[in-house]
C-alpha cells in the first residue's frame, strides 16, 4: 500500500523518488529539525530536540507519547504561540510554503485562524466565558474576513454550529459556554477552529476529557470535516486506540525526540522501537486474554532538564545492555527501520541501536507472544 508510505522529511534526500509515490513535496506542513528550549530557574528544558515530520492535506498525523514528551510544545511552536522572551526555537516550520519560525507576531497571527487552527483538550480555555458561543465564532470569522457584514458573519457561525452537529444552532448561537455540555463545547470549539476553512488543524488531546461515546462522535466529526475541507490534521493523543482509528501516519515521541515514525499500519502492526512496544503492551484490550498481566514500561518518563545520556529511553529499556554499551553514550539516529536494502519498510523510521534482525526477534519473542499486536 504505497498510499500509506509517507516520505520522510528532514532525512538526507538520497533515495530516488519513485514515480507515483508520495513525497513531502506536496506536504502542507513541513517541520524540519525543530528544537524548542525554555530557560527556567531549574535549568534549560529541551522540550523538543530535533523533530522532523510532514503532513499533506487530507491526511492525519497522530503524535503519541507519555505526558511531558513534548507533544504540546511541538504544536504550540507550529502555531507560533510560544512566548518569544522565554523560548528559543530553531529549525524550520513551513506552513503552506511560508516559514513560521522567526516570523513576526502580526504575520503569525494572520496565518493562525485562517491557514491553521487548533483545538484543545479543554474547550473552556479556548472559549471566553463572558461572550456567547455564537458571537465568538462570528468574531473569529470577521477577524480574517473584515469585508463581511455582521449579519453574514452570524449566518456563517450558525452554519458552522449546524455543521458540527449542534442541534438548534440558531438558539444555541446566543448561549454561553457554560450552558453547553462537554461534548457540545468541544463541537463549538471545532466550529470556531474551522470557521475560516484552515488547511491545517492541530487537535491536542481533543477527546481526552470526554466519555467514549462522545469521543466517538467527535472523531467521526473530525473525519467528516477532513473529507469535506481536505485539511491536514495533527492529532495529539496518548491513546493508541484513537491513533489506530483515525491516523494515517504516526510519530512516537520520547523525551522531546522522535523515536519512531511511519504509517499507522507500520507503527501499530510492526512497531520497531522498544518504547513503542512498551506503550502497546501497556494498553488493556477488549480482546485477548483478560487474565494476562499487562506489560508496563518500568520507571517513569525522564526530566527534560536532565535527559539520560545516549538513548534517552535506556534507563527504562529492557534491551539497553544489548547494543554493547552504546545506549548510554550515543544518541541513536532516526533511520529506516528495515535491514539494509530490505523492501517493505518504506518510510518507516526508528531511533534505536538494535539491528533490524534483533528487533524482529525480540518483538516476536517478548512482545507479540504476550498477545499485543494481534
Amino acid at each position, binding site marked *: 500500500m504505497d498510499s500509506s508510505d509517507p516520505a520522510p522529511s528532514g532525512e538526507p534526500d538520497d533515495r530516488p523518488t519513485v514515480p507515483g509515490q508520495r513525497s513531502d513535496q506536496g506536504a502542507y506542513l513541513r517541520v524540519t529539525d525543530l528544537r524548542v528550549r525554555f530557560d527556567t530557574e531549574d535549568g534549560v528544558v529541551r522540550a523538543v530536540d530535533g523533530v522532523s515530520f510532514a503532513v499533506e492535506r487530507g491526511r492525519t498525523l497522530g503524535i503519541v507519547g*507519555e*505526558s511531558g514528551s513534548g507533544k504540546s510544545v511541538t504544536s504550540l511552536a507550529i502555531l507560533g504561540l510560544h512566548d518569544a522572551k522565554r523560548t528559543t526555537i530553531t529549525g524550520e516550520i513551513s506552513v503552506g510554503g511560508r516559514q513560521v519560525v522567526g516570523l513576526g507576531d502580526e504575520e503569525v497571527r494572520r496565518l493562525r485562524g485562517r491557514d491553521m487552527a487548533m483545538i484543545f483538550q479543554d474547550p473552556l480555555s479556548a472559549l471566553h466565558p463572558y461572550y456567547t458561543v455564537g458571537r465568538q465564532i462570528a468574531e473569529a470569522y470577521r477577524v480574517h474576513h473584515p469585508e463581511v457584514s455582521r449579519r453574514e458573519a452570524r449566518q456563517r457561525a450558525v452554519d458552522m454550529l449546524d455543521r458540527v*452537529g449542534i442541534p438548534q444552532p440558531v438558539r444555541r448561537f446566543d448561549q454561553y459556554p457554560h450552558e453547553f*455540555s*462537554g*461534548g*457540545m463545547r468541544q463541537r463549538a470549539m471545532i466550529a470556531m477552529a474551522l470557521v475560516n476553512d484552515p488547511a491545517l488543524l492541530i487537535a491536542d488531546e481533543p477527546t481526552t476529557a470526554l*466519555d*467514549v*461515546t*462522545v*469521543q*466517538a*462522535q467527535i*472523531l*467521526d466529526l473530525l*473525519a467528516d470535516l477532513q473529507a469535506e475541507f481536505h485539511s491536514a490534521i495533527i492529532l495529539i493523543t*496518548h*491513546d*493508541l*486506540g*484513537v*491513533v*489506530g*482509528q*483515525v491516523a494515517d501516519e504516526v510519530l512516537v515521541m520520547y523525551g522531546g525526540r522522535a523515536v519512531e515514525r511511519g504509517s*499507522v*499500519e507500520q507503527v*501499530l*502492526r510492526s512497531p520497531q522501537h522498544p518504547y513503542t512496544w*512498551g*506503550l*502497546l*503492551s*501497556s*494498553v*488493556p*484490550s*477488549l*480482546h*485477548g486474554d*483478560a487474565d494476562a*498481566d*499487562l*506489560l*508496563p*514500561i*518500568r520507571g*517513569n*518518563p525522564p526530566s527534560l532538564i536532565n535527559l539520560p545520556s545516549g538513548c534517552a529511553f535506556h534507563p527504562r529499556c529492557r534491551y539497553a545492555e544489548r547494543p554493547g554499551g552504546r545506549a548510554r553514550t550515543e544518541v541513536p539516529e532516526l533511520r529506516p527501520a528495515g535491514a539494509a536494502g530490505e523492501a517493505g519498510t518504506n518510510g518507516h523510521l526508528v531511533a534505536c541501536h538494535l539491528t533490524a534482525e534483533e528487533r524482529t526477534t525480540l518483538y516476536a519473542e517478548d512482545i507479540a507472544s504476550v498477545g499485543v*499486536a*494481534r
Partner: protein
Amino acid sequence: MSDQPLLRVRGLTKHFPVRQGLRATGLVQAVDGLDFDVRPGETLGLVGESGCGKTTTGRMLVRLLEPTAGSIEFAGRDITHAGRRELRPLRQDLQIIFQDPYASLNPRHTVGRIVAMPLQVNGIKPPGGIKARVQELLELVGLNPEHYNRYPHEFSGGQRQRIGIARALALRPKLIVADEPVSALDVSIQAQVVNLLRDLQRDLGLAFVFIAHDLAVVRHFCQRVAVMYLGRIVEIGDRADIYERPQHPYTRALLSAIPDVTRLGPGGRIRLTGDVPTPLDPPSGCRFRTRCWKAQDICATQEPALVPRDGGNQATACHFPEAVGASPEAEGAPGGDAAGAIVEEVSP
C-alpha cells in the same frame, strides 16, 4: 469464596436537592435504587459515562455520603446510617482509594506519616512498631521503604497513587472502594498500577468495588461488572457476560465506542448521538430510551426491571434485550429515526 456477600446493597439512592436561594427547586437523582452484592475476595467493576453516579455510589458505600434511601450491609451488619462510633470497628475493613493522586495526599506530610495515619487514628500498634509496618507497606506497593521521609511532591503520579494504595492497605481491609484509581495516569504507568492492584487482590484476597469509565481497564481487573446509566444499573454480570454477551443496548453501544488498538480504522460501530439527559429530570420509563435505537412505546411508560436472564448471573434492565449469542458487531443497529431513535451504524 463464600456465598455470603461481604457487601449487600439494596435500593441504594441519593438525591441531591438543588436550591435557588433558600428554595429547593429540584432534585438531582444521582443514584436511584441500586441493588448489588460483592462477595469476599470479589472484584466488582462499576462503569458508565460521566455523571451516571459512580462516585456518589462509592462515597455512600464508605459512608462519606448519607444515602437518601436504601440499605448497605457490610459483613452482615447494617451500616446504612452508621455513625462514626458504630463504624469504627468496621472502618478497618472498608477503605477507599481516590482518583486524584495529587489532591488526596496532604502535601505537608511525609509519606511515612500519610501511610501511618490510619494506624494511629485507629489506635493500632503493629507488633514490630508503626515504622516497620509502614515500610513493609511501602515495599508491598513497590515503593522504596527508604523514601519514608519524603513528601508527596517528590513522587511521580504513579508513585503517588501507590502511596494512596499503601494507605488504604494499612488496616488490612476486606473491601476497597477504588474510584478511578488509574484514570489520571499515563497508559504505561496505569499498567503498572493495574498489575499491582491485581497482585494485591490475589495475594491478600481483597474485595474491590472498582469504579472506572474505561471498560478495557475494568476487563483486566474485575470478575463482575455493573453498567450504570443515569443513576441506575442497566446491566450486571460476570466479565464474560458483559464483554462477550452484552444484552443491554447501552452496554453494547459503550463497548462498541471504545477505540481498540488491535483494530485499525473506523470499523463498524454503534454511534450514540446526543448527550446523557440531565439527572434533574430523567426520561420516564427506561432512562436510556432517548438514545436507544430499539425504543418502543412501552419504553416510555414502563420502567424495565433489572431481571436475571436465563437463570444465570447476568441481569439486564431492558424490555427488548439482545438475543443471547448476538455479537455486538454482527447485529446491526440500523439508523431508524422513528421514535427519535438516534443511532447510526458506520460501516467499515
